[in-house]
């Protein structure tokens, strides 16, 4: 539930100082999650301390009931829409197929027929590599763009031009350069993850309070100390926001990229099951992709909360 509201927040971003950056840049720059998580920490204990059992149950109900109801309504609608038969399987059929599928998620029958576990893992591996490389390049680049105005006005138009391009448009270039499907898919992940990382890091660096920089000047701190003690901690919440946006996009893009490149991966698996006309498996894949995306997002929110708590 909270993941749903979190991702919902990105649609309703607060207008953050749009004057300081060109409009396309500002779109992907969300406020760091810090304030939000702080609110949560502050409001949570109310229901848990020393209140009577009835009230606690009621609070629990208020927290759990709506999401459960939402899922029930979804499955109910799905059932109603499919119970007369047709090409889309109903919830019961999908459930049976899922039980069979998850009873052996890690089998291997040759390169094109592997368990769903392997498919998810190889997708995650591609996302991990592409995303990791993007972080290695994007975060230092973001620091430099935030630090040097000239560089920033030099590179910003290029970023504005390239950012709206669907990462899949880069896939043929990847295929051409790497001559193989696998690195080409990783390459598309790299491309789509790098923009939010660059922009949020740069934004964070630009917003380091002047007071802290004055402290650095009065103490005459070395450049290394300035980076480790002042810039990095001040930029961290922004960086984590960039990382969260990146990984969300990367997980969206990998499915499409794998449909095009083939091999092993959840996207390829969806396409393969479509060719086999196993529609139950496609629906299962949709749920699996959703759950993995949710877990990735939640893990990063947890990480952000832990790190910013330490540094705030």
């Amino acid at each position, binding site marked *: 539930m909270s993941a749903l509201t979190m991702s919902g927040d990105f649609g309703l971003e607060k207008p953050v100082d749009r004057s300081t950056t060109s409009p396309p840049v500002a779109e992907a720059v969300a406020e760091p999650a810090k304030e939000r998580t702080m609110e949560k920490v502050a409001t949570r204990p109310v229901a848990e301390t020393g209140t009577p059992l009835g009230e606690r149950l009621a609070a629990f109900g208020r927290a759990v009931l709506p999401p459960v109801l939402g899922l029930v309504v979804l499955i109910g609608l799905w059932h109603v829409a499919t119970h007369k038969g047709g090409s889309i399987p109903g919830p019961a059929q999908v459930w049976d197929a899922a039980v069979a599928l998850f009873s052996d998620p890690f089998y291997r029958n040759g390169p094109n027929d592997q368990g769903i576990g392997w498919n998810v893992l190889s997708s995650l591996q591609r996302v991990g590599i592409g995303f990791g490389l993007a972080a290695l390049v994007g975060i230092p680049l973001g620091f430099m763009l935030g630090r040097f105005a000239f560089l920033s006005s030099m590179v910003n138009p290029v970023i504005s031009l390239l950012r709206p391009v669907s990462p899949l448009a880069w896939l043929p270039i990847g295929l051409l350069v790497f001559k193989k499907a696998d690195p080409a898919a990783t390459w598309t992940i790299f491309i789509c993850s790098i923009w939010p990382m660059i922009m949020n890091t740069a934004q964070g660096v630009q917003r380091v309070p002047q*007071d802290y920089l*004055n*402290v650095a*000047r*009065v103490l005459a*701190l070395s450049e290394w100390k300035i980076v480790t*003690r*002042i810039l990095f901690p001040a930029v961290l919440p922004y960086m984590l926001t960039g990382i969260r946006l990146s990984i969300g996009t990367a997980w969206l893009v990998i499915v499409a990229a794998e449909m095009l490149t083939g091999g092993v991966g959840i996207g390829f698996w969806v396409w393969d099951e479509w060719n086999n006309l196993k529609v139950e498996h496609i629906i299962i894949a949709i749920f699996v992709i959703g759950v993995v995306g949710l877990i990735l997002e939640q893990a990063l929110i947890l990480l952000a909360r832990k790190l910013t708590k330490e540094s*705030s």
Partner: protein
Amino acid sequence: MEKFVQIEKVGQTFDTKKGKFVALRDIDLTIRKGEFIALIGHSGCGKSTLLNLISGLALPTTGVLLCDGREIAGPGPERAVVFQNHSLLPWLTCFENVYLAVERVFSGREGKAKLKERTAAAIGLVGLDHASSKYPHEISGGMKQRVGIARALSMEPKVLLMDEPFGALDALTRARLQDELMKICEATRATTVMVTHDVDEAVLLSDRIVMMTNGPAATIGEILEVDLPRPRQRLTLAHDPAYIDYRAAVLEFLYEKQAHVEKMAA
């Protein structure tokens, strides 16, 4: 009398969208070693600008500033600043905030144990031993400002510069910190320049009060020698005729001599 900080024919002009803005002109001031100077004036009179010039955070358009015989060409730890809004780094504990300064100044000569000892001593000086391992957001505004003072003092600066250090605090906390500051300055014989808009604070703490005319193109209007014996007690001073006269002199400058200029400017 030892000339310690010399400000000679200093002026500061800013380039704005509407053209040049003269903030300060013709500032001449010599500060003795161990002296406590208060800079007072209406808001916008350039007193913070003058402090920034002494700290080296800004450089003058004309004239020259010297500290201990050397030209001030930039900020440095021998001129420590206590900022108006404390400016502690929120991701470091009070101890680590002070340690950052201590480490910078003394790590070349002293071992880690000695550096920690210095840090603890500075925190002890402002009476915050118990809050040493707390983060800035866990302590009150007055305590944060004390950590800021500890950080500045820990560097054993030649000059201590304070920009309305108690401006954001309530009256009771402010009085307590003023008393503490007086004790610290007497103990360390620190040369101090403090920007303030509080007349009582200025008279209580200073050896000399530098009163600035209203901006734009502000300059030094009058300098008042405060010849009250130390240690000073705020309660006894409240009835001291000399104290009352000094206070009246500053008020007169601010609200009679400089008041009409403000009206004209407005």
